[in-house]
């Protein structure tokens, strides 16, 4: 795996870029998880708001609801939930796709045809995953906040303008940036693990299933480990 990452970084900066394959992957990877990540974002925002409300009423700080929810979503829940869904959707499909290309010798055929399959298949996918997940997360955060606004309005009353001005007052650079930066690492992990499992898939159809399955398991785990590291680092840097 370390060698695979090393090779990825080397081929990433190596000229003769596969621009078209990259753009195609951005579209496929980004677009295919859009609806799913948007929907879960909306539900998370709404549910979180409704769950927090009684406790905040008990403490007499229900006016802080938008602040609490937006911090929870932007700092942790948005990035992690989006990444986990992304892992389930993208890591498995990359694992299965590259795995079946390996098994049916399509990867060998590319190499014989003078195309570097690592660059064409792996670099384009990992790079696309790295860049798409942050965008999807931003979108998911926004939809979650809108969901939260609706949640506030079910029992209470606030205008969209007031809600979002509370939210933006609450969010600082130190809340947004670390959360955004870690999503790049989540995306890279999902892409790298999916590609690694698929590219090195063993022969036979069983190998393809295994590649897809272990890609999801490993990348979900990797997301939590990166999250753990990220919180330590932001803590050390005093951004918390």
């Amino acid at each position, binding site marked *: 795996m370390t060698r695979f990452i090393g090779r990825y970084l080397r081929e990433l900066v190596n000229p003769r870029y596969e621009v078209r394959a990259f753009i195609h992957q951005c579209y496929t990877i980004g677009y295919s998880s859009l609806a799913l990540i948007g929907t879960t974002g909306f539900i998370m925002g709404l549910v979180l708001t409704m769950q927090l409300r009684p406790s905040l009423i008990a403490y007499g700080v229900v006016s802080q609801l938008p602040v609490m929810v937006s911090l929870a979503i932007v700092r942790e829940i948005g990035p992690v939930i989006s990444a986990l869904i992304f892992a389930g959707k993208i890591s498995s499909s990359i694992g299965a796709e590259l795995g079946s290309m390996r098994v049916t010798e399509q990867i*060998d055929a590319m190499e014989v045809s003078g195309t570097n399959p690592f660059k064409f298949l792996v670099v384009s996918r990992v790079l696309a995953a790295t860049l798409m997940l942050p965008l999807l997360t931003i979108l998911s955060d926004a939809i979650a906040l809108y969901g939260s606004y609706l949640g506030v309005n079910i029992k209470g009353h606030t205008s969209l303008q007031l809600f979002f001005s509370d939210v933006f007052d609450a969010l600082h650079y130190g809340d947004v940036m670390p959360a955004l930066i870690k999503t790049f690492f989540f995306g890279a992990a999902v892409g790298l693990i999916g590609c690694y499992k698929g590219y090195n898939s063993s022969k036979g159809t069983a190998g393809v299933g295994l590649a897809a399955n272990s890609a999801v398991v490993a990348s979900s785990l990797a997301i939590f480990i990166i999250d753990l590291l990220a919180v330590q680092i932001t803590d050390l840097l005093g951004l918390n």
Partner: protein
Amino acid sequence: MSITERYRLAQMVHTDGPVIKVSNLKKGFGTRVVLDDLSVELSRGESMVVLGRSGSGKSVFIKCIIGLLKPDAGSIHVLGQDLAALDHDQTDQLRSHIGFLFQSNALYDSMTIRENLEFPMRRHRNTLVREQLDEHIIKTLTNVGLAHTADMMPAELSGGMQKRIALARALVLNPEIILYDEPTSGLDPITSKEISSLMTGIQEQYNTSSIIISHDMSCVKRTADRIMVLLGGKCYAMGTWAELARSNDDNIKQFFE
């Protein structure tokens, strides 16, 4: 002069002697030795069939020749060039003179037939404009009788048609050498006869040299100038159909029964 012919002339690598020369080739996986001291030569315009039991290392042999597998020992010269001495770009350049037909066809299942055939050309014929590319692809497809499938997906075609498309893709760069890995396995007798005739047709039309792995004796008989029997990782016997067919050796006889 058509583009095809012009490219063919431009790409001709002039070598005297054999187009492929394999000397003392060794290749194993882990502790298992698959090829053990294999030496063989292929002359220009010749078709050599490799016979051998399943798992005897026939595919490994031709994958070493195309450079998909690295030999553990020994040397391989293709068109006069030592594979081990070539860098990445030179290897790609050399490979553009070799067509490779995979046992599993290895068609790109997410691409149309046209895109499948364009794939080898995007690297090696990237100076061609759209119309020339299209003209060449349709011409290559016509060669295998499947011009109408250009915009279909591989999964829409029957096994025999997929094999012919794979053959067309192997031919699209007008290679001087073609390596066939079990070109007729899994096909019905009629389709497999069609594939064999295509192969001999190509050989006559372009004077290509080829190595053919096959168990299908009617295909072997039709295509082989020479036959090599691979056994125990070595060249166990070599000869024409007539010579080997009257052999009394059990290891050879079993293929001809």
